[in-house]
């Protein structure tokens, strides 16, 4: 399996865990965990951008990813944790899963 695909799968799993905590209102724990995976999310997104550079056919909308992450960060700043979880879960995570299908094994 390619390293990028690995990263994406791992990031999706971590997002699952952290949004669960947010939905269950375990905010302190969720924030700690989110801070831990934030670097990973950034790395994964960077890796996807690099992959896009190397594979022109790969369908990746940079603006869409940037918008989603910005919306998640805005929700975090507003302390609207459920909205943040929603964006991570239904926008970002689901887009990552779409992208994963287009990545080489």
């Amino acid at each position, binding site marked *: 399996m390619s390293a990028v695909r690995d990263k994406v799968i791992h990031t999706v799993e971590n997002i699952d865990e952290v949004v669960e905590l947010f939905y269950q209102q375990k905010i302190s724990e969720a924030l700690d965990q989110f801070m831990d995976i934030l670097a990973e999310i950034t790395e994964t997104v960077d890796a996807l951008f690099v992959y896009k550079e190397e594979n022109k056919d790969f369908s990746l909308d940079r603006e869409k990813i940037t918008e989603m992450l910005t919306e998640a960060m805005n929700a975090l700043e507003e302390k609207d944790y*459920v909205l943040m979880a929603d964006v991570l*879960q239904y926008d970002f995570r689901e887009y990552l899963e779409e992208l994963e299908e287009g990545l080489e094994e």
Partner: protein
Amino acid sequence: MIYEKNICELKDYRPQFYNKIKAENLAKRLNFNVRTTTAKDGNPVLEIEKEQHLYRLNSMYRPLAEVKRWCEQYQFQNLGINVTMFGMGNLLFVCELLKRMKADSKLYLYEPEPEVFDYILHMVDMTFLITDKRVFLYVSGVNEKEFYYDLAKQTHWSNLAMQIHCCHPKYEEIFPKEYEIFCKWILQCDTTEIVNRNTGVFFAKAFTENSIRNLPFLLESNSIFEFLGKFDTELPAIIVAAGPSLDKNIDILKKAEGKSFMIATDTAVRHLVKAGVKFDCMITVDPKKPERYMAAPECQKLPLFCSLESNFNIMHQHRGKKIWFRDAGEYLTKLYHKFGKEFSMLKAGGNVAAGAWTICRTLGFRRIVFVGQDLAYGENGTHAGGGVDGVTKDVGDVILTKGIFGNEIQTREDWRMYLEWFEREIADCENKIDVIDATEGGALIHGSSVMTLQEVVDKYCTRKGDVAEIFDDMPASFSENLVEVKKELLHMQKEFQDLSFKTEEILHEADKALVLLGEKPVKMYEFEYYAKKISKTNEWIGKQSLFMLLLRYIDGKSVEILKNMNVVTDNVEQDRYDMVVMMQEYYKIVKVILKEIEPFVAEAIETIKRA
């Protein structure tokens, strides 16, 4: 349409709640708005605007999925779960909780904002909630005072670990003060139950021994209910406790003699006698209270409010009228009802002054005065006369509370618990009783007004009462059917024999059931035969009057056995096995206890026969 449907169901299923809503004006708040918007998946989202800040109470994407994931953190497989929830929201979270809760679970749902409730009543079909018998509904400003008492009734130390406390998302943020109070109520409830359990363990044998040995006194005693409506309730009721401040104003009590209803706690009696104060009656509840506290000849003929569990030695040395105000299990209730007389369980409150409060409140006094009710450390000790409570070090660290002069003073955990009990009681009176703290020291009791005892005497002890005559003129409860009551009490002998026999029977059946469970494969048909027999015998035993008197002792000795009785695991076979073992261990304890109390039963029977 929704509103009419909800109201119709409320009238049918919750008429008391409905009447309270009608009576209350669920007034609109300034800077507060409730509305519904729509999520991306079309489901409703509740929004609250409070002081220009907007709070969204559901997911803007998929509210139903959010609700399911929120509920996943809670386990519902155990028995007898109490779920307390702060905040109704638009009922999506509540609905999911109820789907997962078993039939024997209960949901105590508290809405801190009447305007939200009013909104939901108009906009959301609440009929599933209203008609669900597992749900207890509370709304601030309507019936919030009932929350604590209802939860306390269903809280037992064996289900404490199973309780689920939850808060609707965002509610803690929107209503922080109300949430803090809500959590405090739950903590008080749990703490009280733990204290009750510990008290039960400590006094276990004494409760039962006293209950049986005190039975003969039933032939010549009264119940508090016979005195309802008899006293002049405009007289001030003065509860004299033995806090350290009693030393300051005990002599002033002489000016209240004959012009009040003065009830002395057992610990205060000897101080009052020494000071030459003539009080009207006394109260004792503690099963191990030293009899020397009430040994003075001056008090032996005064009416004594008591319980079957009160110290037998005190009851035996006392020569006056005994008046039951607390039941032991449901023994007195069952006996009195059998002979067409009123009796029911009254609140205890955990200490003797709380018992005195319950007596004064039940008798209808409209002014209750505390004297010697410090609920805090004094300069020279914990009690009047410089006495120091020997269990001081055992009841936890010193904590601070507000004193009557606004300063911080030292108290301890159990006193603070009693203080909170009194404050809840006073709040529950809804200003119908004028509560005065004339202790002239100690902790501030919220809801009471602070006066000196001299001021109380000058203002309220202004006319003579006839308390003594009322006590003297009341014939004993069973003076007209003494023979039948004697026969009923003497039936205890047969009950004891039957209980002993049935206990052996259950132990035998449990042995058989365990043997069957050990076989592979398990003969379920045979096992279920024994399981049903055990259940039936257990039910029969639970209904016996004598068993009611043993219950506190049995509970006290079986804490470790019963602590997991409501736990349900994924392993059905193991659960089945554990249940039978638990039943077996429980009845081994019952067998030992029956042996221990046999001499007390014999003594009580002889005394009743001689009476």
